[in-house]
Each structure stands twice: as C-alpha cells, then as structure tokens.
C-alpha cells in the first residue's frame, strides 16, 4: 500500500541542530534501490597552522533552499534513475569533527548515486548562498570556496 507513494522526493533542510547520518540515509532508502551514496562534510581542527576552535555558518535561507532545489532538479535531469535526494546543512555554530553537511542519494545501481552525490556537493559549494566563518584562537576568517561561481570573474 505504501509502495505507491514511493515517488522520487527531495529532502532539503537547513537547521542549527546536530545533523544525523542515520536520519539522512534513512530518508532516501527505497525498496527498488540497491544503492545509497553518502557525503559528509566535517569540520577540520586546523587551517594553515592555526587551530580552529569551531565554525559558524549563516545562510540566505530562502534562496539557499531554492538553489538546493535547483541542484536536485539538475541531478534528476542528468541521472534520471536517481530516486531520492537528501541534502541537510547545518547553520550556526558547528564544533570540530561534527558534520556541516550531509548529502544522500539513492538509485537502483551505484554509479548514478555516487556521481550524483559528487555533483551535489560540488554544485552546492559553487552556487548555494551559505557562508562559513572559521573561529581561531585570536581571530576569525570568512572562508571563500574556490568553487564559488563568480570567483576571479572579470567585472
């Protein structure tokens, strides 16, 4: 009875609470999918010799959710067999070793979900309006993704 409701779904969430790998992977599990691929972005404790105390994330939330929806739409065009997509990003303070982002994709066979997960994180880093501040012992730094789509563009 429930199987007829197993239509492809996108699960997008920006939240300040700790992210859960179990929760995100369970969202995308599907009876006719043999593969769930996962990416977890975690917080490193150092940058250029400086000790990172924690990260802080902020977002243009409404636009970030829209940009993530566009990523999901693009994934389904490029890999039509992809079933469910989940992209959860944490906002606010993220302690060292905790996850900032978890992406999970299910598909019947593994190639599509593995490729789609990579596309999701690469495109998120290029297009989604979320900002990370690294807090060190004596200072802080707003990070800039090298993937940022307008980086180095001539104005």
């Amino acid at each position, binding site marked *: 009875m429930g199987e007829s409701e197993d239509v492809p779904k996108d699960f997008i969430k920006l939240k300040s609470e700790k992210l859960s790998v179990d929760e995100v992977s369970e969202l995308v599990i599907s009876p006719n999918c043999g593969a769930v691929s996962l990416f977890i*972005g975690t917080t490193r404790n150092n940058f250029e010799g400086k000790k990172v105390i924690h990260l802080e*994330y*902020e*977002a*243009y939330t*409404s*636009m*970030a959710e*829209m940009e993530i929806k566009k990523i999901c739409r693009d994934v389904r065009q490029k890999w039509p067999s992809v079933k469910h997509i989940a992209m959860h*990003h944490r906002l606010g303070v993220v302690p060292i070793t905790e996850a*900032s*982002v978890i992406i999970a994709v299910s598909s019947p066979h593994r190639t599509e979900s593995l490729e789609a997960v990579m596309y999701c*994180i690469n495109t*998120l*880093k*290029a*297009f*989604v*309006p*979320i*900002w*990370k*501040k690294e807090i060190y012992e004596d200072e802080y730094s*707003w*990070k*800039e*993704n090298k993937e*940022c*789509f*307008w*980086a180095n*563009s001539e*104005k």
Partner: protein
Amino acid sequence: MRCQVTVLYFARSAELAGLRSESVSVPQRLTSLQLWEEIVKIHPRLAVIQDQVIFAVQQEYVLLGDQLLVLQTGDEVAIIPPISGG
C-alpha cells in the same frame, strides 16, 4: 522614478554595514553597478569588498556591472560575498 527595496546583508558585508537588513530608496531602473554605488553611499565601508561581491535580486544572482535592473517597491536585494557552504 524611485522605489523602496529591502537590502539584505550577509557575512562580511553585514559586518561592514553594521546591520542585516534595511529599506533603501533607489531608482527603479539602474545598472547593477549603479545599485552597488547607491548602497556604498550609505555604507562606505562596503567599498573594500566591491571586487568580491555579487547581488541576488529577487533571489536571482546578478553580477556587478552593466546589467539593467528594473526594480519595484518591496523587491529583495541581497549582497552576496563569496560563498563557503558545504
């Protein structure tokens, strides 16, 4: 003709401007670079990030440059410093 848009500031631009959002009167028709210049008149400290930022107008990205914008009262204009999600 002018209109009243909501300007949103994020990350470094919020620190430089000292606030996260405000209502600003701007011409209805102007280039994206002219819009930037209007905002820098109000918050001169933003000038230091001119080469790094772009806009999001009604949640569509717009580079700073010659692109002609047609704005309406209530439109949302966000200053977007280089992003670092993920």
